[in-house]
Each structure stands twice: as C-alpha cells, then as structure tokens.
C-alpha cells in the first residue's frame, strides 16, 4: 500500500479554474478531483473548452483564476515542463508525434524524460531495449519500428502517442480525443489499450471524448462539461438519462 497521505490526497485537483480568450469565457469556476488509479472521461459539445482545460492544467496556457494541484502540491503557473516533471503527461488532440523521426526515436524521447534535468544525463542515457520492445508491442508497431512516424496511419499515430505517454513513466495521463478519425475496430482497440493503461500499468487516466460509442466502451465515470464547468458526474447510463444532459449535449447529438 502507498503511504497513508497519498491515498487521501487526490492525484490531480483543480479548483475554481477560469480562462478567458479575449472576451469569451471558456472555463468558469471549473473544479474536479481525480484520485490515483482512476479512469474518467470528460464529454462536452465541441468548443466547450475541453482542450483548454488540458492546456491550462498542464501549464501550456496560464489560467486567469483558480488553481491546480498535483499530489497536493500547487502547480498553478509553473512552466509546463515543470508540471510534466511532477508526473502528468498528455496526448494532444492533433497527434503530438515526431513526424520526421522513426517510431523508435519517438519512443526514446519520453523514455529518457526522467533524465531531462541534465543534458549530460540525456547524452549518456543507456538504451533500454526490453522496455522499448514492450512499448512497440503495446502500440502494435513492432513491425514498423524504424518507419517514420509521419507516414503511419491515423490510428497508428494515436497509439504511438499513447505508448509515448506510457514510456514517460508519468502517473497521470490526459488523453485528448484519442479516437479521432478512427474506424470502429480501431476505436475498440483503443478502448482496450486505455483499459490496459489503467489496469495493467496502474495509470490514472483522464480522457476527453466526443464519440459516445467509445465512452460506453470505456465503462467509467463520465463528467459532462458545459458552459465552462462540470455539469454532472456519473456512470454513462445515468448520464444518458439525465434530462439536463440530454438537453445540453446528447439531445443535440441525436
């Protein structure tokens, strides 16, 4: 068992977060908290600020108000690499892979992230062959290990990026629309992969998703985001029946 304090302290806690772009309020008093080894999903209509939430939580954008805590430590306003070093990594909505590098090189960068404090340590980092083999297997790219990442299919790019997040050893993984542009079969494989992150690798995972089919596959608590904050939290089936949610989101989606 982990230390007593870590079981009570949420891994990620966001309090009253707000963010405006010009006059447009995108996040308004958004709060959420995520315990270690939870899997959760955020849904919400297009443009409601889901990606912005990730951007602010990871320090890519500064918040206008509110605070972010990782394992009880406030990280609001820290540079994004400092926040990442505290154990939080993300998948970008448009796959954040290195398109001009091979798959193995893509994986090597996060594999050495723990050495990132010192250029000398990065320079002299030892190759970790067995770990690399495992990661290649996880993203299903063993046969394409030396292919340039830019030439992979849409689905493969997403899986590569998820394997890169896993390579980084961060405890908390944020996934921004991991099934965008995927076929049903690929979507099912992705759901399986995310469940492995949670159950086999004991990661804490927060997924932004648009595709209701996928949300159901994940079989986890769902947070509905509306007007810049969390409208409701609950299991998928309950969320589906909530009249407020139907009106706000599902109703429109059909």
């Amino acid at each position, binding site marked *: 068992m982990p230390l007593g304090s870590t079981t009570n302290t949420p891994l990620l806690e966001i309090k009253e977060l707000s963010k405006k772009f010009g006059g447009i309020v995108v996040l308004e008093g958004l709060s959420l908290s995520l315990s270690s080894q939870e899997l959760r999903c955020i849904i919400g209509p297009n443009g409601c600020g889901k990606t912005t939430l990730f951007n602010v939580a*990871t320090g*890519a954008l500064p918040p206008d108000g509110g605070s972010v805590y990782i394992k009880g430590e406030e990280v609001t306003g820290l*540079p*994004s*690499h*400092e926040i*990442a*070093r505290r154990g939080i*990594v*993300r998948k*970008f909505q448009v796959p*954040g*892979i*290195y*398109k*001009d*590098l*091979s798959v*193995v*090189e893509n994986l*090597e*960068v*996060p594999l*050495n*992230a723990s*050495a*990132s*404090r010192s*250029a000398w340590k*990065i*320079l*002299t*980092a030892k*190759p970790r*062959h067995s770990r*690399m*083999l495992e990661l*290649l297997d996880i993203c299903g790219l*063993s*046969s*394409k*290990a*030396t292919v340039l990442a830019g030439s992979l299919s849409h689905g493969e790019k997403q899986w590569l990026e998820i394997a*890169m997040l896993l390579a*980084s050893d961060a405890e908390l993984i944020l996934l921004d629309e991991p099934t965008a542009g995927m076929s049903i079969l690929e979507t099912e494989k992705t759901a399986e992969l995310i469940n492995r992150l949670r159950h086999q690798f004991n990661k804490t995972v927060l997924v932004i998703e648009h595709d209701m089919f996928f949300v159901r596959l994940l079989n986890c608590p769902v947070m509905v985001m509306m007007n810049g904050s969390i409208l409701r939290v609950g299991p998928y089936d309950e969320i589906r029946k909530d009249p407020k949610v139907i009106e706000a989101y599902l109703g429109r989606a059909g």
Partner: protein
Amino acid sequence: MKKSIGYISSCGIWIALALAPLVLDEWGVSQFAQYMTYGIFALSLAFIWGQAGILCFGQAIFFGLGAYLMALTTLEKFSWFGGSQAIGLILAVLGPGLAAHVVGQLLFRGRGLSGAYFAIVTLATAVIVEIIAQHWSYIGGFNGLLGVPPLVVIWREGLDAFITPMENYYTIFFSALLIYLALLGMVRSPLGIVLATLKDEEYRTRAFGYNIANLKIIAFTCSGAVAGIAGGLFTTQFGFVSPPLTGFALSTEVLIWVAVGGRGVLLAAFLGAIVVRYIENVLSDTLGSYWLMALGTLFIAAVVVAPRGLFGKLLQLPLPRRFRQFVPKKL
C-alpha cells in the same frame, strides 16, 4: 550486416581528404586546408540549424570573435599571455562559446524567440558587431589586425618553427575530423534525438518535461565554440583579421554552404563549404560578379528544390546502432 551507402561514402570522403595532399601542389594544400577550416565553421551551423532547427543568421559573430581572440593573443595585444598560440586557441573556443551562451540566454529564455525572429535578431546583432569592430581602434578598426603568425611547431626553433603547408593541412584535417566526430556523437546520442524534436514539435518535447530553453542554449553554446575554433584556425592561415569576419556577409555565406551541402547531415554541410569555396576559387575569375548570382541561384535551388542539399541524401547515415535491433526482419 551490410554497411550503408551513407556510411561508406562518409568514410570515403575522410579518406579522400586524408590522401588529397598526394595529388595537390603546395598551393592546393594550403587552399584545401582553408576550405576545411570553413568546413568546421559550416559544421557549427549545421549542428544547430540542421539538428535543432535554430536558424542563426549571425554565425560569423562567433567565427570572427574566435579569429580576433586568436589574433589579439598571438600579436601580444593581451600582453599577459606572452603571445601563446595555445592560449589563443583556448580563448578562441571559450570566448565564442561564452558569447553564444549569453546570446542564447537572452534569446531563448522566457517565452523565447523562435524561427524568423531569432534569425532577424541574430542578423541584426552581426551587423552591430561588425560596426563595433570597425570603430574599435584597440582591435585595429577598419583595417583589422595584420601579421598574425602561422601556427608554430613547439619543438622546433626560430624560423623553422613555423608550420609547413603540409603540417598545417593535417592539423586542420585532424581538428576537423575530431570536431566532426564529437558533434556526430552528440547528434546520434539520445540528446541529439531530443534536439531533433525541437525543429517542429518542441511543444511535444516540453510536455514530457524537457526544458527547451536550456537544451537550445546548450546546443547554441557548443555551436559558438566550434565556430570560434574555426575562426582561430582561420586567422593563423590567412595572417589577418578584419571586421567583415564578424559580420553579415560571412554569416550569409556560411548559411549558403550549409544549405547547398545539406543542412540535415553534418558531413554534407562540411563538404558543402569545401565544394562551394573550391568552385568559387576556380570560377570567380571567369565569372566575376556573376559568381554571386550563380551562388544565389544555387542557394535558392537548394532551399526550394533540394532541401537535403547536394550531399544530404548520399551521406545520410543509418539509424544509430542502439536502434538496429528493432529493424524488422525482412521475410
């Protein structure tokens, strides 16, 4: 395992350079030593531009600084060093390295300047540095410093001590080879891969916990030091330094060599410098001012049509050894 074309051609080029004095006359030997010196300068730029995507338009600042430090030391303007060439060369590495570090701190820290802004600021800096050099009489003003002695061989006495063209050639050759291998080792290390991600996807690398500004400053510092040693070696061969060595024109020229040779591959950039300088020497008398036009056209062609340059494809090395075992087996 079969050796790759890139590996074989790279070795071939170094062997050819090692053997070149066999077929060159004394004048040719000294010419090629100078071309290789420019080659070292080109390596310094290819390292940051080709690897990390840092487009520096003021690379001559560091080359010129190295040249001036070497000249000032050996001409005993810094009297407390007693004209020592060894100290001159050390200063030609440390001074420009430090200067690049300071420039890097100023330009990469905080939000950081990127892309075109970085290029413009470094260009403007080169112009300013050149003007300062022109008006600073301690370092010779417009005329620069003349009579910089060639390297001496420490175990020989008197006039015999001065290096022969052949000895000079191999001094430059081994300096170039050593610098190339050091930079190549860096480029192919895990650090080199991380630097390569800064070209287009630094946001991704930052989100893994890497401090992008620090990495760029380190790369830029190394680059400045290499440009500086090239400048230091340059001045012992040409016998003078002057303000244009620090300025805009030379900064642009090195960009052209690197682009024409192939910025993505260190040896391609090195070869680019040698080939362009060689052709220039052969053709500039016949072509006269058309030479600049020809060079400009070649540059545009390299950037637009062949971004890998003349030699980038030929000299492309295979993946570093640590990745070889992941190459899928052909059925």
